[in-house]
């Protein structure tokens, strides 16, 4: 078990290192002359040279990458080119907002997805199962900007239950923000909800067909006992991994949803940075999101290993 965690941790660190290289290459080499990109086409050669020297663009790439990485790890994320503010403070204030939204969404779709998936699997081939299957196949195909627009049309424009815009004050508390979180949270949940439902259903169906579930019934356990003591634990084990992979979808969904609802989160910050070609901000936001995604995968791996005796007692 300890060795397993160490190995996974090693993998994650190596992957993060490689991802940082990819981000560096994508942001600082692919676009060509960064100085020109920042100052625009009509900049004087002197201004360009000064900026290059200032940004250290004259140094060899390896050195540039090394110093960038060291600074990043040490918490020096640079100054935003478009706002002249330290990147780190900006990113973390937005991260808090995104985390609030993600948390509300997570608390909705994970339990609901598991319940719906279980329900469909336990009533396999019934009408409920078919409805859930078709429903989830449909929701998995509805982009957030479609569901978001539909929700806004119904619940804010027609019914006036919730505001159409979720532009909260950057330092609003959770409770203040909550009414404005409802619609975006539902929007961002639907795809992940459908995904978790489908995967839970598949793994539960598989477990229900195993010999040990038959053994459990033939011991004389009542159906609810079989489901609680024998089916759930084994069926939800793969769901742990599924939820972690779903966080990748959740991050993508947040970018679109925050943009649609004008919600001041990390996703909208990233789009803002992209529009302004604000390289330090793009780098920091992207790297942070990759770290979050990798850590959630690592956590899932550890939980999986802990719950699975085959790994725990190797």
């Amino acid at each position, binding site marked *: 078990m300890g060795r397993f965690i160490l190995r996974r941790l090693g993998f994650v660190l190596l992957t993060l290192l490689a991802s940082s290289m990819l981000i560096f290459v994508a942001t600082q080499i692919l676009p060509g002359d960064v100085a020109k990109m920042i100052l625009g086409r009509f900049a004087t050669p002197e201004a360009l040279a000064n900026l290059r020297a200032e940004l250290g663009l004259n140094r060899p790439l390896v050195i540039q990458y090394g110093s960038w990485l060291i600074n990043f790890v040490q918490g020096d994320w640079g100054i935003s080119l478009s706002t002249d503010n330290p990147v780190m403070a900006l990113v973390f204030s937005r991260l808090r907002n995104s985390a609030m939204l993600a948390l509300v969404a997570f608390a909705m779709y994970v339990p609901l997805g598991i319940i719906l998936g279980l329900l469909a699997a336990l009533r396999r081939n019934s009408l409920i199962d078919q409805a859930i299957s078709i429903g989830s196949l449909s929701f998995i195909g509805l982009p957030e900007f479609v569901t978001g627009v539909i929700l806004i049309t119904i619940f804010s424009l027609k019914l006036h239950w919730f505001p159409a815009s979720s532009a909260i004050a950057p330092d609003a508390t959770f409770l203040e923000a909550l009414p404005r979180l409802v619609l975006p949270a539902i929007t961002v949940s639907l795809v992940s909800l459908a995904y978790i439902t489908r995967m839970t259903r598949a793994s539960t169906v598989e477990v229900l067909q195993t010999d040990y579930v038959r053994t459990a019934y033939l011991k004389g356990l009542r159906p609810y006992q079989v489901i609680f003591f024998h089916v759930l634990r084994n069926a939800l084990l793969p769901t742990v991994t599924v939820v972690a992979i779903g966080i990748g979808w959740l991050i993508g969904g947040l970018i679109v949803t925050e943009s649609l609802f004008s919600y001041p989160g990390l996703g909208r910050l*990233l789009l803002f940075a992209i529009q302004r070609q604000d390289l330090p901000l793009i780098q920091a936001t992207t790297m942070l999101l*990759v770290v979050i995604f990798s850590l959630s995968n690592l956590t899932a791996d550890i939980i999986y290993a802990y719950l699975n005796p085959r790994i725990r007692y190797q």
Partner: protein
Amino acid sequence: MVIKTPDPVSGKHNTGKHARRPRHQGRWRELLRNPFAFAGTLIFLFFLTMAFVGPLVAPYGFENQDIAARLKPPDATHFFGTDQYGRDVFSRILAGSRGIFLLGGIGTLLATIIGTSIGLFAGYYGRMWDEILMRVLDILLAFPPLLLALVLLATVGSSLTNLIVVVTILYVPMLARVVRSMVLDLKTTEFVEAAKTRGEKNSYILFREILPNALAPLLVEMSMRFSYAIFLVASLGFLGLGVQPPSPDWGLQINEARAYFSTAPWMLLFPAGTISLLVIATNLMSDGLRHILQPDIGKQ
């Protein structure tokens, strides 16, 4: 209560004395029997046809501007209304079908070709190559998909070619993994070992013994990827990083329509609905395909 015991009539009771239908013949009929999968396939085929003939059958040219008829709601002349330049939304949607299939289709196809090659190679030769290739792909998988697409497009700029490249980069790792795991399974089957003991070349084993048996699941995976690709391209269009104006691209239409949402919601709702329709239809189709081609595999 769900109880499963082996059904003594199907499968297990394989007598061989009686002529049985070849394996796939009966299953295509199953697709017709599943109304959702059937409808999905029809819708998919409709849009595929439109990708070729859309501009020809559309009532208006997709670039035809009619300033007098700006922002008109849907009626008998303009089924889906008109946009801010008086262009017919219905015609633009039909014409936009080509872009979607170009982007999503070519991207998925390229990803399939590259991913399959990597998967075959890594899975079959294994060991070192497998480790190296899979670790490299893991790096790409460490990015949430939309994030990777955004970062790449932000720096290289958005164009049709770049979008196709991005879709390809995104889906190569996933397809490579699927193919690799199939190869790992097939490589140890006895019919592949039998081919090895006959002294068949590696290329024969890979392409004549292994690949034909991996095609069915690969087809399912491809159709699933295609629907994700449409989803992705539309989302990028919405975020303003997709195809640039005046293309009739659906995502772009949606992005442009946002500004007019309160006055002309049809501009947004129809393309959005169309995207959802195609994605859902493709999902239903690939789910149907999965049941036909991989009846034993109930999971994704």
